[in-house]
């Protein structure tokens, strides 16, 4: 068991401190760097909150495409399997394996991967596109 607050909680409060207490002390030309730092903390906090849920879902979608057995055999754990299966996925796309009938399903899978990453790195971009 770990102490509270958790990683996301710490990152949130660190970000608020930067923005609410320290930003105004900086000269104008240095504020951009501080805002970038605050943005980095926000991304890290969302990633910590997500845990491995996005990766578990991604692997499930890849299993639907390639079959459960193939994905299981690709590695010993979640991260190895994700890495190995995405490498194969990228190569198969380049080789034209998914040009035909399954193109729509594959595009939907890719859209799902992209949305999952945007929910962490820039959810407002996703909202602006009406795809949240």
């Amino acid at each position, binding site marked *: 068991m770990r102490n509270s607050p958790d990683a996301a909680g710490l990152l949130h409060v660190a970000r608020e401190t930067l923005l609410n207490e320290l930003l105004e002390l900086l000269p104008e030309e240095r504020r951009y760097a501080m805002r970038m730092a605050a943005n980095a903390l926000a991304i890290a906090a969302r990633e910590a909150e997500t845990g491995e849920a996005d990766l578990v879902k991604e692997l499930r979608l890849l299993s639907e495409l390639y079959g459960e057995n193939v994905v299981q055999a690709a590695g010993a754990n979640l991260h190895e399997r994700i890495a190995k299966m*995405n490498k194969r996925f990228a*190569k198969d796309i*380049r080789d034209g394996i998914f*040009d035909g009938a399954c193109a729509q399903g594959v595009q939907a899978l*890719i859209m799902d991967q992209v949305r999952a990453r*945007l929910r962490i790195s820039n959810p407002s971009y996703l909202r602006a596109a009406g795809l949240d």
Partner: protein
Amino acid sequence: MNGGNGSVPVGEELSHGLGEFLSEVSDCETLEIIALERLSGGAVQENYALDVHFSSGAMAGRHELVLRADAPSAVAASRSRADEFAVLKVAWEAGLKVPEPLWVCADDSLIGRAFYVMRRLPGDASGHRLVRDPSLDAVRESLVERLGEELARLHTIEPPHPELEGLPQPPLSPAHARIQEYRGYLDKLPEPQPALEWGLRWLERKAPVSDEVVLCHCDYRTGNYLVEQGELSGILDWEFASWSDPLEDIAWFCARCWRFGQWHQEAGGMGSREAFYRGYERISGKSITKKFISYWEVMATVRWAIIALQQGHRHTSGDENSLELALTGRMVPEMELDILMQIEAVKGEVFERAQ
């Protein structure tokens, strides 16, 4: 050229070799380097504001110049300084609004790297400032129309060209050449990129036959031209110039990624697409085929995504510890979403000239 935030003075060794060179090329025995200061911006090239007083010869008097050299850690993929100088010279001679190129030094023993010297032009190149500057609101349409005209003038230059033999051969299919180039960049990066592969495969399957191959700037966008008192004062950064499909330049200028947040101003965040096209079409005498622009805008977004990946990799590989580079790497899914939506928007479009 506007240096943005602050400049960095350079050492003695640079100005020593430079003095000898300037003296020789200007046929002037005594000259004084009054100022030599690094301008900010430019990760691959370094620009220095160079003020020189020549005591005699054709250049007698004081001149405000720019010295452009490879950065010490130059990366591949852009032209050599000598090739860039040749392109700039051809553009200048064609009457384009560019800084006048003066002298080139391909010998890297003088200041440690190849460089060339051009005249310094006044103006602001900052995309973030230009797209928001309220004093430009009244002239935005005429500015982008002018930018369209200049681009059309550039595109009248065709291969083969005796002064541009240093450029890579004109590709038979500019689209396929780019796809191959971008896959090569992806192969050098450690992580697979299914979304970008999807975009590239789509581009490969839909690749149109190019009507023509001409001299392209290949980085023609807001941020790479100077505006002075509401007028275009110069087109900069010719380091990527190549023989390519003219639609590639038009699409790069209009792509979402170069609007600096001013999404509704489709021509580089500065003005309307109609005004940009109007200027282009008036000079070229040809109408722009919109759906091929859509194709090249997907290509533009893929290119920007790969640049962002490469920048992120510069941080994660340990080459250059930088918060800005790290965050740029995290922007990639934004371009990926754009690519998927752009592809979806032209679904069913018949590219009748497709190969």
